[in-house]
């Protein structure tokens, strides 16, 4: 697929978000065995989706971008769109919703999101944002797979970005962590359109007075819009998205979940001495052991 982009100085951005379990205390519920109790746990806009929404808002404040937010899910996923709108003052909200989308793995989800983003602004989206990963599925695969299907340049782990509207170039800083090695900050440049997955450490900064004024203006607007979010909402099904049903949901998913089991308890690797936390004498002995372990010697 060939990607198209606008030729004017306008900027169109889209954000893909997800409704996820709320892991915050008081909202999350765990079963006795430590696993998530999904029925009792509330849902919210995922924290990484929120960061992606903030990155889109930056484009609105700095470049006056038009912003669309999309999500795939059942009707209840509207609430994620509303919460995202509050963060990024979205001009459009898209819910991709169809029974046949259920059971999708990342590849089948990416197909729906690809079709959805192609519908925004007549397919002329310059920058798409996604979060780093969902806090329930945690694969981090859906963003890059959507990017690939769109034919957009994928930039991952982005901690900072700027767009040159004249030359239609994006400059971004990426944080690359290689386990067992050092971290790297890489600065890259790529022509629009691009797909950016935002690093959890991303923070938007607004330096100039005009940006701060724009920030306040759009924030007020976002609040009003989110209160009336249904006016901005479009719900699209398979047919409206023009999707081949064989590429989405269960039929379009190469992978299945075969089984879910409790991770067996490993054989005890150490024999613990149990100490009564209120017993001062025992605690004193532990402390002495701790200093020993640290390689110090107590000289009395």
């Amino acid at each position, binding site marked *: 697929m060939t990607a198209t982009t606008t030729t004017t100085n306008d900027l169109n951005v889209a954000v893909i978000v997800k409704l996820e379990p709320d892991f915050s205390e008081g909202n999350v519920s765990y079963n006795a065995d430590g696993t998530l109790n999904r029925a009792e746990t509330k849902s919210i806009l995922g924290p990484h989706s929120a960061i992606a929404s903030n990155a889109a808002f930056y484009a609105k404040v700095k470049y006056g971008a038009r912003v669309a937010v999309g999500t795939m899910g059942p009707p209840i996923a509207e609430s994620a769109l509303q919460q995202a709108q509050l963060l990024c003052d979205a001009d459009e909200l898209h819910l991709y919703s169809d029974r046949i989308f259920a059971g999708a793995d990342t590849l089948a989800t990416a197909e729906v999101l690809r079709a959805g983003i192609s519908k925004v602004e007549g397919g002329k989206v310059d920058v798409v944002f996604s979060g780093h990963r969902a806090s329930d599925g945690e694969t981090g695969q859906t963003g*890059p797979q959507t990017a690939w299907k769109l034919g957009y*340049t994928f930039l991952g782990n982005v901690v900072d970005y700027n767009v040159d509207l004249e030359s239609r170039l994006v400059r971004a800083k990426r944080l690359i962590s290689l386990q067992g090695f050092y971290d790297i900050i890489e600065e890259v440049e790529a022509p629009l359109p691009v797909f950016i997955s935002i690093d959890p450490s991303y923070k938007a900064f607004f330096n100039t007075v005009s940006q701060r004024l724009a920030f306040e203006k759009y924030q007020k607007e976002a609040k009003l819009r989110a209160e009336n979010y249904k006016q901005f909402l479009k719900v699209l099904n398979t047919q409206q998205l023009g999707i081949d049903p064989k590429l989405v949901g269960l039929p379009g998913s*190469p992978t299945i979940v075969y089984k879910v089991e409790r991770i067996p308890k490993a054989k005890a690797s150490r024999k613990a001495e149990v100490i009564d936390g209120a017993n001062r004498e025992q605690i004193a002995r532990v402390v002495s052991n701790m200093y020993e372990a640290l390689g110090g010697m107590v000289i009395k």
Partner: protein
Amino acid sequence: MKSSSNYQHLYVVVEHEDGMPVPVSLEMLGEARRLMDGFNKKYSSDEKVVAVVLGHNVRKLCEELIFYGADVVICVDSPELQHMRNLIDTKVISQIARSRELVAKFSNASEFIKPRYMFFAADSIGRHMSSTVLAELESGLASDINKLVISDLEIKHEHKTKGQSMKYEKTLEMYRPDFSGFLWTTILCLDNRNPANEREYHPQACSIIPGVFAQIERDTSRRGAIVEYVPKFDEKDLRVRVLDRKIVKSAVDFDSHKAVVSFGKGVKDSPEQNIKLVAELAKEIEAEVGISLPISKKPFSVSESTNSNYMIPDRVVGTSGRKVAPLLYIAVGISGAMQHIAGMKESGFIVAINPDENSPIKDECDVFIKGRMEDVIPLLLEELRKQRPTIEVKK
């Protein structure tokens, strides 16, 4: 159904920095070696472990990979590939995965279409690379795997088999720990055999958590083939330019501290005060502060400074974060999910503070202090100050 020789071999996508392999690359090769040795024995076949290396001046690395378990190394050497770039690398890796000519250089390739299995690293590079490569190859991908088994499975699935029971041979069972650390989900990548929508899905691919699998011992007597591949570049595939690369150190430094104090969900009764207590304990023994994975999801509301200082992914100890091995490890209010244990079990002396004697952490520590951290830490602090070494003799 097509014959099984359409899909052959296990391809491992190797990551390196200027020719030095990232540890997970050797770990993947080790696991690939073990799996394929078992596979070839079980199925009386001769399928290969194929390492795929993209880079510039990487000949030496390719030779090393054979010593670490590869039968074949496909080597792509070009200045354009010096630094990993998702777009061009995805194109090149996908070309390689589809190349019958390459396979013909080391085995019978007359029916080859794509690799049978494919491994990537579950790190900032491999996570995205695996996603885009498998989107291009249109097959299934499981992420963050820490156990792998190849077996023949009897499958009955609503869509894949239309509810019938069918045998899937040589299936890669890909185990991934979920976010809680208590559940294991097994992911399979299976052909659609539903008559309504028949489709083959290969390679069966996954990304592998760093630090989980053991590399095999370097053996310079091992022999293998290095196959050069000259990629076809399109000008537009080179449209991302790397302007600058800087090595940075994380603000969190586990390696140069002799002790680590980590906390988990047990701080929940009064998170702000309890995290301060943990920090005070850490300061007293000059320890770095770690956290368990659930804390990085910010489950409590705390002050902005506590939030941005402590409840951050950089501090996670475990398979989803850092592996640490300090002289002293103190686990405060951590129940001991497998994924956390894997990140700290090599520590010298391990102390757990926990009110629940049934917590799994009890089997992984040397001293289990039974009690609430609110009560235990002040007592510990008092004793630590009392017994503070007047002269410290370093080993």
